[in-house]
């Protein structure tokens, strides 16, 4: 059941009716049952795998809370089991199919997406939640829950199971324990988020994916510099709108059930450095990596090399974090290279800040801030080339980006959708809120709403079945 379909809307509506009709103590069981049903609509196997991993992490949490001398071992068994499940089901599946079908796993093309959708839906996301839960319980920063139903909702809540956000147990389970109220303001906010999310996905991302040159990165040498640059720009904006749109939609749906899901994007296109970029792009993953990879590696290194300016202290945490991030996305060489390049950017920034100091971006002249945002985005997009092209096509892809002698036939429609995205982000960032439209006067608000609905209807017609790209990770 794809979440942009009317079927999903009907499913949410039916669940909402049931959710608010039953007594309070049955609300979470309703959510869990709906979530299981949602997984079953994808596959019984997916649901079974999710149930097994949920039960495993719930039990491990209780065992870890008991403490004892095997606590550390239990923690590693827990982390190892989750990681093994993710590794075998995600990468093993891809490997077997690539061998069986003879498909190249090296490019982000149709083959890649088709095959990767066979990975149990959401496993990359709820496995990370399971790991963070076990670590937090083991550290003593989180009381393990004894409510199996609540834990089940935490792991496989239908509104976020497909592609996150990656929630923290403390925040999420804490909400389930508190009395909540869904009033008209919350409903308006939910409506705004769902509308903006649908707009990003159906009006910007899907058309962009449709009009981007087919196999642009596999046949890069046939493209001129402007064509390739526009294709790269289009891919980055399509990915961004696809994922940001998804997140806004599920956050809106979450609000209707009184659940606040973590924000995943905060206008990353306007980031003025890479540190800022990774705090604005896929925030829930970035923060997960920061807390469970970057900080532990950093602390471990600092205990050995006390000088914070030591090059190992500066380089290794970022490198480890970005490589784990890359491996989480995919095991392809191109993706690992993408992680390495981004780690390089972060290290350079860190070295510069530690050795020479730097002003916070907000205190710099506006023109400089904008220039830095442009450079940061450009470099981030260039780092995305190995991710999209794979190592096999890397040289021709970068090579064609340098061929500016002929204009070719750059597709101006990509520029239109890029401009729409920048406009939308600019409006949202100026208001410092994704739901900024709600604070506008009624005529403006109604006009934006009407325009968004019209655009969604026209963009989709009857075809709203395109999956979200981040389902594949």
């Amino acid at each position, binding site marked *: 059941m794809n979440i942009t379909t009317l079927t999903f809307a009907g499913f949410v509506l039916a669940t909402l009716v049931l*959710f*608010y009709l039953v*007594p*309070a*103590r049955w*609300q*979470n069981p309703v959510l869990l049952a709906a979530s299981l049903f949602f997984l079953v609509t994808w596959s019984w196997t997916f649901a079974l795998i999710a149930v097994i991993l949920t039960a495993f992490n719930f039990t491990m949490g209780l065992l870890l809370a008991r403490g004892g001398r095997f606590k550390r071992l239990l923690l590693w068994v827990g982390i190892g089991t989750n990681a093994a499940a993710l590794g075998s089901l995600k990468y093993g599946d891809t490997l077997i199919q690539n061998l069986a079908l003879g498909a190249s796993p090296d490019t982000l093309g149709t083959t890649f997406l088709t095959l990767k959708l066979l990975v149990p839906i959401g496993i990359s996301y709820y496995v990370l939640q399971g790991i963070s839960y076990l670590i937090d319980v083991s550290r003593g920063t989180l009381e393990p829950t*004894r*409510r*199996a*139903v609540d834990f089940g909702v935490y792991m496989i809540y239908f509104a976020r199971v497909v592609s996150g956000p990656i929630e923290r147990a403390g925040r999420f389970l804490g909400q*389930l*324990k*508190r*009395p*909540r*109220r*869904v*009033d*008209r303001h919350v*409903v*308006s906010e939910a409506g705004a988020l769902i509308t903006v999310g649908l707009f990003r996905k159906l009006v910007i991302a899907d*058309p962009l994916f*449709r*009009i981007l040159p087919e196999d642009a990165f596999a046949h890069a040498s046939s493209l001129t510099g402007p064509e390739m640059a526009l294709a790269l720009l289009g891919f980055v904006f399509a990915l961004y709108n696809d994922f940001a749109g998804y997140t806004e939609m599920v956050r809106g749906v979450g609000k209707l*059930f*009184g659940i606040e899901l973590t924000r995943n994007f905060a206008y990353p296109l306007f980031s003025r450095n890479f540190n800022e970029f990774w705090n604005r792009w896929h925030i829930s993953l970035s923060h997960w990596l920061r807390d469970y990879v970057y900080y532990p590696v950093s602390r471990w290194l600092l205990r050995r090399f006390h000088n914070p300016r030591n090059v190992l202290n500066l380089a290794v945490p970022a490198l480890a974090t970005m490589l784990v991030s890359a491996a989480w996305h995919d095991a392809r060489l191109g993706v690992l290279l993408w992680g390495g390049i981004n780690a390089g950017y972060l290290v350079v920034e860190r070295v510069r800040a530690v050795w020479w100091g730097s002003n916070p971006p907000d205190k710099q002249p506006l023109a400089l801030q904008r220039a830095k945002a442009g450079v940061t985005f450009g470099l981030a997009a260039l780092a995305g080339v190995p991710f999209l092209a794979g190592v096999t096509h890397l040289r021709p892809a970068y090579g064609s980006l340098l061929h500016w002698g002929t204009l070719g036939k750059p597709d101006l*429609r990509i520029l239109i*959708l890029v401009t729409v995205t920048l406009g939308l982000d600019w409006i949202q960032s100026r208001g410092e809120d994704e739901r900024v439209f709600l604070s506008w006067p*009624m*005529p403006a*608000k*109604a*006009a934006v*709403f*009407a325009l968004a*609905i*019209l655009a969604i209807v*026209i*963009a989709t*017609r*009857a075809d709203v079945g395109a999956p979200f790209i981040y389902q594949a990770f």
Partner: protein
Amino acid sequence: MGDAQPGVRLDLSGMSARLVLAAASMLLAVMAALEIAGRVPSIQTQFLAPSIGSADRHVEIQVAYLDAYSERHGAPNCYFLGSSTVLRGISPSAFEDAMRQGGIDGLHCYNLGIQGMNALYAPTVAQALIEYSHPRLILYGADTAHVDPPTGHGAAQKALDSPWFQYYLGDRSPESVAVAWLRSYRYLLMLNRFFQPHFTDWWHESEKFDFKLDEQGHVHSRPADRTNPIIFESRNDDSQGAASSRFTPLQSNIDAIVQLAALPGPQQVVVGSMPLHPSYFANQPNNIQAYDRAKEKLESVTQANGLLYIPEPPREMLYDDLWLNRLHLNAVGADVFGRYLGEHVSRAKAP
């Protein structure tokens, strides 16, 4: 599950539908403005024909012209169906004139020849048109397409897959209803088309369609194209066309033509044999007899099923200057052949 759950309380007090109502009003206003604009003759002739959601651009333009015609003159009560030989080869006004002179008045004919349309599609296209305007007469122009198997990817199939045809074939999905009734929605569909792959091909197809709508709602081929064929030139590499045709009538195609007589409604169905230029068979002389036999079979079957069959005119009537190429008549040829058909149909007192 030991402790009591605090739960979520829904409190919608003070909730108003003002925003939704305001947005709906604005949407309605925009759609109404587009709807009015889309029915203004000067807009219909100056701007691109709107989309009906078909994958074939020429059919989209033809349907737009059909609607424009219907708005000015009332819905047609007579249609010409067939392939491009029909589209280019029968002039509705010449046919109407001949019918009028033969004592049959009040016919408003519209030529809906669809490029490459195989006979198999004729009953379904006719069924949609019967639902559209309950015609008195349907004239099917049979050409080599009645001996060829359908490709399955042709313009006729794409036309029938479109929401407009689907609506008249009984589909009442929201999109079919919107396309059939709302000109505004058809213009908005062009925006959708803009963000589809191969938009430039679509745009070029619009430019290549060499028939134009005038403000009176009549469709004319562009004068410049009468001597400078663009669309069908490559397809009419005649020796290749003749060689690939088996000229053995396919029973399924003949059955489809006969099915036209069984369609519900009072309309008279006429089958006309479309002329081919003699040089069409220049490289394949043996095929002349085969094609003649195919026509004879069609004639006998159609007549046995109560359909009026009109054979090709004598060759000297359609002299060389009346041909665009070896398969298609030019505009003057279409007048001559349209008149010929009108005379024969009126002589038979049909409808």
